[in-house]
């Protein structure tokens, strides 16, 4: 069915309220992006989200929007605490999939001769690939419970990282409402040996350098300078998170019937936020989110160790410190001003990132003057961006921006495009060292499979919902 779309301005498109929709849709996109979007299912998914009970404000889509399942990827929706719902499909299977960005004292020129050794070292120290697990770290039931309750704090309390790592992470690396009793045996089993692993698909570790400062003043607050080495990590809650979502969907299918919620797509199944089912899911989701925070923290520690071993320098000399850790698949309780009133809302971000404006009280003191920093990764062959949140973003998107570039080619088409090509050699010619557990993954992750993230960031900037600070160029990429 064709979805009616009206252009508001060069960067905003409205899906008018009709039929079962409780609100309108609002999509951030250029005209060229919208022409592509009209050919797939993502706009229909924006419309479907608008039919969910208790939605506050529009059903939103960021410019990296593409066809997901249930919610579109790039979707943001806020729900009223009393009238609204929580939908596991609005968070996704990889709960708290997210990215973290570290800076260093090194420059690209200093690191370049050691890059092959360093990349190999990280590849050896961080298990990656399909079903990757740790042979050296199998959590006991008691340890796993602490991970689920305390997230990255669990790691830092064991000497794996610093208090500053926590301070610069969303929710300080731990969501408080976690209840491990809500997890199935299967979820626990799947999580036991995967802490500190990258996984596969679009997950990565990237060694980058700062190619250009787009806002030097804000960059200075973030400690960024031209030519500086940075490291990005993209992964989530691994099999434990997938199982939590899977288990919750079965409960929510029954709950939707029980609470007489009409579903345009079963994947949107949900329950009132105030219901037993809704609260149970949020408690289980928090466990998976905490697992993901701890996962990225352990990988951070392994990356730091690899730098120290390869360069023969101590932590003090390297200063591999965290800039930010942000979640892009999550539902969180937030306070927002909406139509002149303070409201407590459950904001679902499915492939979208929280980016609060300067002055927001939840931001750490070090970032309160500039707004929340966000890493927006591009594809493995081009570049990534650092942004910060804006006041306009608070007004229009509940303080949200895009989470990446967004796919344009299916995996099948990407594989076809990569056929008979040596992607490793192509990347090397572009000055990027590529290491991967799987050639099949590399084929599916070629640059052309994604939008140019510069176009995505341009929409965010022009619409005023985020401010670009720096562009980072990859030097070495580790794929799962």
């Amino acid at each position, binding site marked *: 069915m064709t979805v009616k779309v009206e252009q508001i301005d060069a960067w905003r498109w409205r899906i008018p309220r009709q039929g079962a929709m409780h609100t309108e849709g609002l999509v951030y996109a250029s005209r060229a992006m919208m022409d592509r979007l009209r050919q*797939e*299912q*993502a706009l229909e998914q924006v419309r479907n989200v608008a039919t969910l009970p208790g939605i506050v404000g529009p059903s939103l889509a960021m410019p990296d929007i*593409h*066809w*997901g*399942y*249930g919610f579109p*990827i790039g979707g943001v929706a806020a729900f009223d605490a009393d009238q609204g719902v929580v939908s596991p*499909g609005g968070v*996704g*299977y*990889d709960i708290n999939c997210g990215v973290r960005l570290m800076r260093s004292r090194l420059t690209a020129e200093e690191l370049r001769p050691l890059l092959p050794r360093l990349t190999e070292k990280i590849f050896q120290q961080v298990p990656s690939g*399909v*079903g990757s697990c740790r042979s050296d770290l199998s959590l006991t039931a008691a340890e796993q419970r602490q991970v689920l309750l305390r997230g990255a704090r669990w790691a830092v309390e064991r000497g794996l990282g610093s208090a500053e790592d926590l301070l610069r992470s969303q929710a300080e690396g731990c969501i408080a409402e976690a209840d491990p009793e809500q997890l199935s045996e*299967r979820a626990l*089993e*799947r999580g036991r040996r995967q802490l500190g692993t990258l*996984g*596969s*698909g679009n997950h990565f570790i990237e060694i980058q350098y700062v190619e250009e400062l787009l806002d030097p003043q804000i960059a200075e607050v973030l400690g960024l300078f031209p030519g500086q080495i940075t490291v990005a990590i993209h992964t989530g809650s691994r*099999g434990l998170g*997938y199982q939590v*979502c*899977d288990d919750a*969907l*079965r409960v929510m*299918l*029954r709950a939707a019937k029980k609470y007489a919620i009409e579903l345009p*797509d*079963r*994947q949107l*199944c949900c329950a009132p936020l105030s219901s037993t089912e809704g609260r149970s899911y949020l408690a289980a989701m928090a466990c998976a989110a905490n697992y993901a925070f701890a996962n990225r923290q352990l990988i951070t520690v392994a990356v730091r160790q690899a730098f120290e071993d390869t360069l023969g320098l101590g932590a003090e000399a390297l200063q591999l410190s965290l800039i930010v850790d942000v979640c892009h698949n999550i539902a969180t309780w937030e306070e927002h001003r909406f139509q002149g009133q303070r409201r407590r809302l459950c904001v679902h971000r499915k492939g979208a990132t929280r980016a609060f404006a300067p002055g927001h009280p939840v931001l750490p003191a070090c970032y309160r003057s500039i707004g929340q920093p966000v890493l927006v990764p591009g594809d493995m062959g081009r570049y990534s961006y650092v942004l910060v949140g804006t006041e306009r973003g608070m007004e229009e998107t509940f303080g949200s921006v895009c989470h990446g570039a967004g*796919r*344009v*080619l*299916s*995996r*099948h*088409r990407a594989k076809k495009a990569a056929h008979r090509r040596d992607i490793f050699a192509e990347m090397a010619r572009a000055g990027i060292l590529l290491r991967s557990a*799987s050639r*099949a*993954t590399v084929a*599916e992750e070629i640059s052309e499979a994604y939008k140019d993230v510069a176009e995505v960031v341009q929409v965010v900037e022009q619409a005023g919902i985020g401010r670009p600070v720096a562009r980072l160029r990859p030097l070495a990429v580790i794929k*799962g």
Partner: protein
Amino acid sequence: MYRLLEHTADMGIEARARRLDALFVQAARGLLDILFGTPCPGRGRQNLALQVEACDREELLVAWLSELLFVVQQRGFRPSGLTIDAVNAGHLGATLCGAFAPEEAAPLREVKAVTYHRLSVVETEDGWKARVFLDL
């Protein structure tokens, strides 16, 4: 028979068969094809019985493929064949033939889950047709 469906970020399976039990076999073969590039990745002869329940045929399809995914990805079972012993609108019993031998075949990709997005199981003039999407 089955065919793999394109999706911008993920993949889907469309299965067709004359009987409902054969439809569930075809969908499973599609899943194994996505995981391994072949619907028969294993060589072993050990039998593994699986039972799943759901409230309708569509959810039964998701439950069945999810169970298969769990024993393959998490437990390392590599099926060399599979049969559906019994199936109705709310219950499915199946026997996998194969072995717990992950070294026999490495998955090409990770499948995170079997989704309910645009899920369908319908009776057609010449049998049954199903559509299901996976999160990769």
